[in-house]
């Protein structure tokens, strides 16, 4: 098998997943561009917005560096760091699923028995990532041109995203050599992405204002590839040279990974797995389901704990900056659906809304385990015992809901701790905890939908579960920002979450989604009982 055939095989496998990522990222850029053109069409409005953001470390931390009041500069400020994270994750998952995942599944063994070089699977996986990044750069550029942004700036924005993507493709390739499992490799690489975002955030927050609409980052930002990409400043002092840093980092990391792969045994890794226990005294299906999710739950909880803590820490800064300024208050209010109040609470709510979504993602991931266990043959082994398929399904659902609840509670406690650390009274912890807990019923609807997908459309279920969650997030959390009609937005359960502490909590918005979720999950159990396993 030649490398070309291997590459063609990889592209064939990517014909659905990769386009979804590319279209999703480009769509997000285009939608927020349209929203900014519509909401802040006037130069003076944009100047005021950017001037306010420039003076506020919280915004600098979350979004990036203000770089002028032109439409292009505002779009870049609003979206770039977020798109950079998306691009980095796209590359991470892409590289790992074609390297360590194939290796664990035994597919590489079959491939490498053919006359191909040992590193050929890795090299072709990196080639697919390169292609994906070139495509993304092209699409982002096109989106910028269609929005009417400065052409050179649009091209540079695309290149900046591509450079970040390649950097993390190389990083993921190294993670795939270091870690023994695809989960471990994805976890390590995704954590690197998170750290890169946070380091850039800290550096940008510590930046110094050059004038009213420009902020220069501190040196800390240059410890992050996203910081270097941002330094290309596409819509002011445009300069492509800083992009060489993430690009070179990616090339070096890729080369190191290729070198390691060429020299190591199939299946070997730096962190090899040790021998385990020879028996399991308290073995049981419930403990099995819990054991399967503990690692990932800790991972999600760590991420949301950091997010929540930062939310608590920086909200007082936002409150201070907003003061009596109605315009900024209005902008912040648009982050939270259906609320007209303009306080620091809204800002915390927006961040804890993201934490709630991540907590839901932990649950959805746990539910998709049902499908991987079925597809890989473990369900057959379990269900050939007296254990019923309904028990198997409900048990995993219970673990999924618990995983979501744990991640949400950790985020709420971390946010409260952040508040206390920045000088609030300890009773804040109760409020932030309530803010995440009221989101749980809405999140459980997505867990139930994922379970229904596994029962009814098993082959499509994993992709479908994630698409549903992203759709719910876009409609419910970002609907106002994107200017979607109310009727469309209200489809998402996230849209109906009580805006604690601004709105009073009533039973309806909590009970209705919970009942809907139970109905959906119950329907899934009925379907599962009536179908073949494996389907």
């Amino acid at each position, binding site marked *: 098998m030649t490398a070309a055939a291997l590459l063609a095989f990889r592209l064939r496998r990517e014909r659905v997943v990769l386009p979804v990522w590319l279209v999703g990222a480009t769509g997000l850029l285009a939608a927020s561009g349209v929203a900014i053109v519509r909401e802040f069409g006037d130069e003076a409005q944009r100047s005021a917005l950017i001037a306010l953001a420039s003076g506020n470390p919280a915004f600098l931390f979350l979004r990036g560096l203000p770089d002028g009041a032109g439409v292009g500069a505002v779009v870049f400020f609003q979206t770039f760091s977020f798109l950079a994270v998306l691009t980095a994750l796209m590359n991470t998952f892409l590289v790992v699923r074609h390297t360590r995942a194939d290796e664990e599944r035994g597919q590489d063994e079959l491939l490498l028995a053919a006359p191909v070089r040992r590193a050929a699977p890795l090299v072709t996986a990196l080639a697919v990532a390169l292609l994906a990044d070139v495509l993304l750069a092209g699409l982002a550029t096109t989106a910028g041109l269609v929005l009417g942004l400065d052409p050179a700036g649009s091209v540079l924005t695309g290149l900046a995203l591509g450079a970040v993507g390649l950097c993390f493709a190389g990083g993921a390739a190294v993670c795939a050599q270091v870690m023994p499992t695809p989960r471990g490799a994805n976890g390590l690489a995704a954590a690197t992405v998170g750290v890169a975002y946070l380091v850039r955030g800290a550096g940008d927050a510590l930046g110094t204002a050059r004038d009213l609409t420009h902020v220069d980052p501190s040196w800390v930002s240059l410890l992050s590839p996203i910081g270097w990409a941002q330094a290309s400043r596409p819509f002011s002092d445009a300069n492509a040279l800083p992009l060489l840093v993430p690009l070179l980092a990616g090339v070096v990391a890729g080369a190191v990974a290729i070198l390691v792969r060429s020299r190591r045994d199939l299946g070997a890794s730096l962190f090899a797995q040790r021998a385990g226990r020879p028996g399991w005294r308290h073995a049981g299906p419930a403990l*099995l389901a819990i054991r399967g999710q503990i690692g990932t739950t800790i991972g999600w909880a760590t991420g949301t704990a950091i997010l929540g803590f930062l939310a608590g820490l920086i909200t007082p800064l936002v409150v201070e900056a907003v003061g009596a300024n109605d315009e900024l208050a209005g902008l912040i209010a648009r982050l939270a659906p259906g609320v007209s109040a303009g306080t620091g609470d809204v800002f915390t709510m927006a961040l804890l809304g993201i934490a709630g979504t991540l907590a839901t993602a932990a649950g959805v991931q746990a539910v998709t385990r049902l499908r991987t266990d079925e597809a890989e043959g*473990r369900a057959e082994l379990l269900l050939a015992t007296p254990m019923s398929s309904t028990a198997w399904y409900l048990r995993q659902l219970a673990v999924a809901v618990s995983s979501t609840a744990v991640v949400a509670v950790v985020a709420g406690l971390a946010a409260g701790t952040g508040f206390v650390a920045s000088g609030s009274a300890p009773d804040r912890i109760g409020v932030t905890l309530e803010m995440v807990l009221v989101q749980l019923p809405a999140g459980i609807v997505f867990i139930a939908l994922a379970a229904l997908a596994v029962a009814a459309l098993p082959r499509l279920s994993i992709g479908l579960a994630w698409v549903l969650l992203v759709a719910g997030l876009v409609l419910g959390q970002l609907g106002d920002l994107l200017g979607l009609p109310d009727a469309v937005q209200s489809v998402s359960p996230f849209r109906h979450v009580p805006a604690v502490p601004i709105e009073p909590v009533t039973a309806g918005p909590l009970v209705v989604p919970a009942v809907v979720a139970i109905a959906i999950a119950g329907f899934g159990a009925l379907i599962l009982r009536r179908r073949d396993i494996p389907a």
Partner: protein
Amino acid sequence: MLSTEHAPVIRVEGLTKRFGRSTALDGFHLEVEPGEIHGFLGPNGAGKSTTIRILLGLVRPTAGVVEVLGRDPWHDPSATNRHVAYVPGDVALWPGLTGGEAIDLLLRLRGGGDRAERDRLIAAFELDPRTRSRAYSKGNRQKVALIAALAARAPLYILDEPTSGLDPLMESVFRDEIRRVRDAGSTVLLSSHLLGEVEQLCDRVTIIRAGRHVETARLEDLVRGAESPTLESIFLRHYETR
């Protein structure tokens, strides 16, 4: 709990299973008597694994009668599987669990099993129970499923090509263990491609081809009735002829 002593342990009549437009089983029948080791033979893709999955209540028959220990497995798989120990042809385990942990899990699901028996079998099959399932070879994964099944003391064992990854020494351990459970009164349905194994173990065999029943016979009758007395030539003739 069990049906009367002489009723068949497995009774399959007119069993048909369609997956979309393709027909996996076409009016197949099978009868397994109490206390026998029943060979289940047929070319790849003939429908052996589909039949076994139907016996376990995992797959729903399109038409026909299926009884395992007098009960319909699709209607209540938990009730029939309580008396069944199963070894799949392609054993998939939980990558993070060790072999010993996977054995304990499967034993617990089947109602506990016998601790001493488990340890004896681990020693007999020379399995390292501390190894993570991820690192096991095909043969070692099969040993895990075999040990978990054999330590369960089930009235019925359903084994789908259980020795395809075992070395000859382990195969002989396997044969001894199967004879032991048969002598203890259990019934065994053994799907296999290894004619030597079938010849040494099975009392009767059923041959399936393209989802249809070809023949059920005592092994010695099969050999006696044929022009060419080797088992291989008999099976080849059954597998090939239309």
